[in-house]
């Protein structure tokens, strides 16, 4: 079943001359994990914002094509209603904390209160979200007292509690220290395992190689490729798009180690399996 369908999506920011998204089409199945990669200014953030209806509903500008989430056309819906179908997490955990709540528990409630969710249901959802993001122990802490990684997981919990079918994460770890990043990656992996459809923009290419079912390569507002990680990362022209392949792919390329389908391995495990096979 197609969870997300993007058709001929075009978008231009107000006052801008160029298209930030230029005729993008792709579809995502339920439960898939999509990694979005591309150089700076490629339009990755813009794409995330278009999937959640922020472009054009919040950002205005010029818009064409369609984004369908479970058949619902996002550009025609209120952002608040879209939020119950597709959620988004941004880079900076600070700006995502509502700032009006005094505890982690209340913070997760923010979106649910706005949606008018009944109290018993609200509490149940908050408990689940805290559990899933592994921050239940922090429930009574002030959100601003948390570490970066904890705060970002809280931001994710606030989104998850609204029960979207899809979650979009735009470089969720770029402002975190290594430990915080690891916590967040773990959390995202958890969500994916729970069957959530995930789209994640990430510069740490090894993470994409490890988690993603498919990689969406974007450059200058155009969709260059949308394929399995080995396929995308084995492209000879990958570096032209400002992307360095994962380190294992580079090593295998140097050693000319290919898998059965003629592609280079992208993760340590794939590389290792292949090497073991060769040595046998």
């Amino acid at each position, binding site marked *: 079943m197609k969870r997300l369908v993007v058709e001929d999506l*075009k*978008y*231009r*920011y*107000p*006052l801008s001359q160029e*298209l930030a998204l230029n005729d993008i089409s792709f579809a995502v199945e339920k439960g898939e994990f999509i990694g979005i990669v591309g150089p700076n200014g490629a339009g990755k953030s813009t794409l995330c914002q278009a999937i959640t209806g922020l472009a*054009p*509903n*919040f*950002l*205005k*500008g*010029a*818009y*064409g*094509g369609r984004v369908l989430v479970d058949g619902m056309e996002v550009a025609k819906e209120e952002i608040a209603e879209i939020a119950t179908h597709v959620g988004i997490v941004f880079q900076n955990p600070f700006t995502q904390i509502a*700032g009006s709540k005094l505890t982690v528990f209340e913070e997760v409630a923010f979106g649910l209160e706005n949606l008018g969710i009944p109290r018993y249901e609200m509490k149940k959802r908050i408990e689940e979200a805290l559990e899933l993001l592994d921050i239940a122990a922090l429930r009574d802490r002030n959100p601003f007292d948390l570490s970066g990684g904890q705060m970002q997981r809280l931001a994710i919990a606030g989104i998850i509690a609204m029960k979207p079918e899809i979650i979009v994460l735009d470089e969720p770890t770029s402002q975190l220290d290594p430990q915080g990043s690891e916590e967040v990656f773990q959390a995202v992996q958890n969500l994916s395992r729970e069957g959530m459809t995930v789209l994640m923009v990430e510069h740490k290419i090894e993470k994409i190689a490890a988690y993603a079912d498919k990689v969406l390569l974007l450059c200058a507002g155009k969709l260059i490729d949308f394929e399995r990680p080995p396929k995308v990362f084995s492209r000879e022209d990958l570096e032209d798009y400002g992307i360095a392949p994962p380190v294992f792919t580079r090593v295998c390329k140097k050693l000319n180690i290919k898998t059965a389908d003629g592609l280079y391995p992208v993760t340590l495990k794939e590389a290792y399996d292949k090497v073991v096979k060769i040595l046998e």
Partner: protein
Amino acid sequence: MTKKSRWSFNFSTASLVLIPAAVGINYIGKFFAGALKLPLWLDSIGTVLASMLAGPVIGALSGAINNIIYGLTADPISLVYAITSVAIGITVGILAYKGWMDSWPKALFSGIIVALVSAVVSTPLNIKFWGGQTGNFWGDSVFAFLIANKYPVLIASFVDEILVDIPDKIATILVSYAIFRGLPNKLTLVYKNESEIEKL
């Protein structure tokens, strides 16, 4: 831009979140003016920026909320002067809209206008609540001198207030203008609620 959108009470989320930022900026301006022992208050930079970015209504709201928060967390009398802050917010919003905030000389002129508005609005409050004084040492000395020489309280109080307001509001507007000029275009645009979505 249409006049209507400028005066709209249908606030965008971006304009609303500008208000807490504005109040915080007011607070920090006041803090640094105190820490550096400057002879100015500099406590309305945020209100001025909010008006410049999002118009008179958001500016006025920032001013009002600023004084309510200050009144409830430090000095209750500041609640009374919410009226002055609202007047400053509205004035700057209109001046900016009329193009009186887009060069240094114009900003200087606007500073004088804002000082006058502020003094005109504050003076009756000063008279009603403080018998005409401002609590500023130099201003109040002049006030004492004037009423000792039988000038009407209205005049004495106005002079007291304007002496404090002229340097303070000019400095405030100039600082705000300098900051405004440094803001990226894509930021200043989001506060304006009016742009339509074009079809591609």
